[in-house]
Each structure stands twice: as structure tokens, then as C-alpha cells.
């Protein structure tokens, strides 16, 4: 359907005359924007005189053109954005030797609970993990812009409800929460392999010592 030529709405602001010109502009604008740009934002560039479908089609063409580069055009939750392919990271690290901090296991577990069980209160998180949640861990995630409070549960104490943000999806290159890896059923996991649960960290501490 999209393969058929779509007539361009005439565009007259000292403007791009043809699809290639429009693509060149889309490319330049996306390369200068750190945040993802939605279709409708991109359409604004051309005074909204270009059909959304055309913008989408040109973006897809652009994505294909960049396929073999070190940078890729991706479609994430809040729109389209360029980012480097993971294989480029090793070179970037040479330039900026300090690597960004990795999140601790507890922060990651809290994030996973919020992502998969949202909206949740701190109490819900504590119930699942069986331990108290440090304010620091939640703060870390909020400061990163991955988690936000979206209201209060209507129970005594009115605890804050947390959910993940669009920016969380953007930063993981996802379009929606459904694109997260599915929650594995523990039962099937157990059948698969029981010792994968024994993380080597735990293993090394306890089993190692038996020898």
C-alpha cells in the first residue's frame, strides 16, 4: 500500500520540494535532537502540510538507509531517535573512560517490580521482595527519569503509586511495556534447569568453600 507513490501535499515555505529533501531535513532534525521526536512533532516542521503516513514512510526509508552505519534510527515509546549501536560503545568508552554506574541488584529488582507490576506502592515492592525498600533505591530510579509517582492508592496512609515512564522505555529502545521480556513462569523455569538460579555469585561464596 505504502509502496504506491503518495502524492505530496504541496509544501511552499521556502521549502523542500521532494521526498529526498524532506528526508534530508528529517534526518538533520533527528540528529540534532537528543529526545525522541513523535510523528506529529516531526510533521510540525513542515507546517503540518505533509501527511503523517508520508512522514512515517520516509522515516522507515531513513532507518533502512542507516542500517549499515554505527548509528541507527529507532522507533521507541515517545517517537523516533538516533542512537549508537551497542558495538560502538567500546570505542566511546575509550574516549570517556569512566563507565556509567551499573545498577545494584536491589535497584534492578525494584525496577522490575515497578515495570511488571505497575502501578505499585513501596509496600507492594516490599511484600514481593521480602525486605524493606531503601528510599535511596527509589530515588535513583526517579532521578534517572525511569520511575515516577502517578498518584496515591486510596487506602489509609495514601501510599504513593509508582509506574515506569516513557523515558524508561525510550532508554531501553522499547516502544511499549509489552516489549519487555516476558515474565517467565517459575515452574517452567524450574523444569528447564534448576541450577541457573544458583547464580555464580552465590555459588562461589557458598559451594566453593566445600572443596
Amino acid at each position, binding site marked *: 500500500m505504502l509502496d504506491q507513490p503518495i502524492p505530496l501535499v504541496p509544501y511552499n515555505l521556502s521549502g523542500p520540494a521532494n521526498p529526498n529533501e524532506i528526508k534530508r531535513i528529517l534526518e538533520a532534525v533527528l540528529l540534532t535532537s537528543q529526545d525522541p521526536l513523535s510523528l506529529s512533532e516531526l510533521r510540525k516542521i513542515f507546517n503540518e502540510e505533509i501527511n503523517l503516513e508520508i512522514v512515517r514512510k520516509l522515516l522507515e526509508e531513513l532507518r533502512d538507509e542507516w542500517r549499515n552505519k554505527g548509528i541507527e534510527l529507532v522507533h521507541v515509546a515517545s517517537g523516533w531517535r538516533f542512537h549508537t549501536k551497542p558495538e560502538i560503545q567500546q570505542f566511546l568508552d575509550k574516549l570517556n573512560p569512566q563507565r556509567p554506574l551499573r545498577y545494584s541488584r536491589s535497584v534492578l529488582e525494584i525496577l522490575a517490580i515497578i515495570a511488571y507490576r505497575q502501578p505499585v506502592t513501596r509496600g507492594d515492592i516490599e511484600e514481593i521482595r521480602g525486605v524493606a525498600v531503601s528510599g535511596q533505591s527509589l530515588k535513583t530510579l526517579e532521578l534517572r527519569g525511569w520511575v515516577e509517582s502517578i498518584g496515591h492508592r486510596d487506602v489509609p496512609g495514601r501510599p504513593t503509586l509508582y509506574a515506569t515512564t516513557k523515558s524508561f522505555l525510550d532508554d531501553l529502545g522499547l516502544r511499549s511495556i509489552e516489549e519487555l521480556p516476558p515474565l517467565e513462569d517459575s515452574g517452567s523455569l524450574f523444569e528447564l534447569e534448576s541450577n541457573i538460579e*544458583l547464580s555464580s555469585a552465590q555459588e562461589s561464596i557458598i559451594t566453593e568453600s566445600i572443596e
Partner: protein
Amino acid sequence: MNQFPTLNTIVPVKEIHGKFLMDVPADLYIPPDALEIFLDTFQGPLDLLLYLIRKNNLEILDIPMAELTRQYMSYVEIMRANQLELAVEYLLMAAVLIEIKSRMLLPCSNSKDTEGDIDPRATLARRLIEYEKIKLAASRLNDLPQAERDFALVKVPAEKIMLRCLPEVSANDLHNAWLALFAGIKNKSHYHVTREKLSVRAHMSRIMRQLRGREFIKFHELFNPTFNIAELVVTFIALLELVRETLVEVTQSNIFGIIYVRPTNPISAI
């Protein structure tokens, strides 16, 4: 290789050189140096229980409570013996385990409508399953490429043009400003404005500009050969107007001689 991530990706494994100083059951040896790391490694009692269950190949839906409780208590005892600050959750879990174990020892309840039906282990099993799912999900989440850690965002700086920050004015704005100005004046008194060719004013400016920094200019220099008749006329009128406003002087030393136009105040004097 291994499609399931290990916790190596999350918690760095520290080297342990400790020797065993304690005599504890064989499957519970923990080098004392490792105890703190042990506490750090486990996220809490659920995590420890899961470890014990998986390590011993126990069935999560049919937990042998006696064995699990015995092992769990051994760990807790070791930690307490070493006076490690044990999170209260570990002790609470110990109580839960003992309670489940003791309830299982009781003969099946006579009143079927209460808790008699329900396996006392059910809640624990449910929590363990849920926690295990989350634990795995956290690990998978951590394996996803992440902005700033695994890839960088592209941000080409835009060359900002200064003019863009300045207010825009259109010719109509000026016209409207003019109209508003005189609408105001008209309200105050009766004014009478003649129609005027703007070009006279424009050419007055042009002539003044041509004269800028110069002692004089020859009359004919004011008349650009490319001008049309109207422009020539307007230029002449502009010159007369400048004379009238005493902005320029026009002199001629003899009849048919060169006419000089001088600024009354050469710009060099500014």
C-alpha cells in the same frame, strides 16, 4: 552462550581467600570472610530460601519444611554467631518457617470451613514463585541494551543564529504602529496630514548617506544614470527638501559651472 543471565552481571563476585574456622555441617560451610558478602549477595530471606530450594533440588510447590527450616536456621545461626547485623526480615522469616512447620505437624483440622483445606505452605510458595519471577526479570532487564551504558544518544549541536532570537517586525506592523500613533493624535486635536511620496524621504536619506564623510559631492553624482524619470524627479525634490531643511548647501561658483552639494555638517564632525 547461556541464554539465562547469571547474577555476575549484577553483583561483582569478590575473591574469597578465607579459610574455614568453624565446624559446621558440610553443606553449610561459609568462610567467615564471606559472611558479609553472603549477606550482601542475598537480597533477603526469600532470596536465601530460593537459593536453598534450588540448590537442594527441592520442589517449590511441595517444600519439605523440616529440611528447609533446618538449613535456613543454620545460616541464621552462623550469622548471629558472628554477630553480623542481621536484617530483621531474616528473623521474621525464621518465625514464619517454624510456624508453617508446626502447623503441618498438627493433625488435619476438624473444621473444614477454616484454613484446614489450605496447605500452610501455599502463601510461602506463592511468594517464592513471584519473587523468583521478578528476580529473573530484573536480570533480563539488566541485559537489555541501556542508553548511556550500552549505547549513546546522538546529539549534533545546532548552530544557533543570533538573529532568530530577535523580535520580528513586518512592514504591516510599522504601518499599524503609524496608524495607531495618528489615531491617538487625531483624538486629541484635529490634524491634517498630507499625502506624501515616501520616496522623497528615502532619497533624502540616500543623499545624506552619499554625503557622509565627504566635503562635497558634485550635483550630477546624485543622479544615478539608471534612475527612471520619476526617480530623477524625486531625487531633485529630495535635494530641494534637504536645502529647505538646511541639511545641505548647494553652491555654484559660475554660471553653467559645476554645482556642489555640501553637507552643512560634514559627518566627520560627528
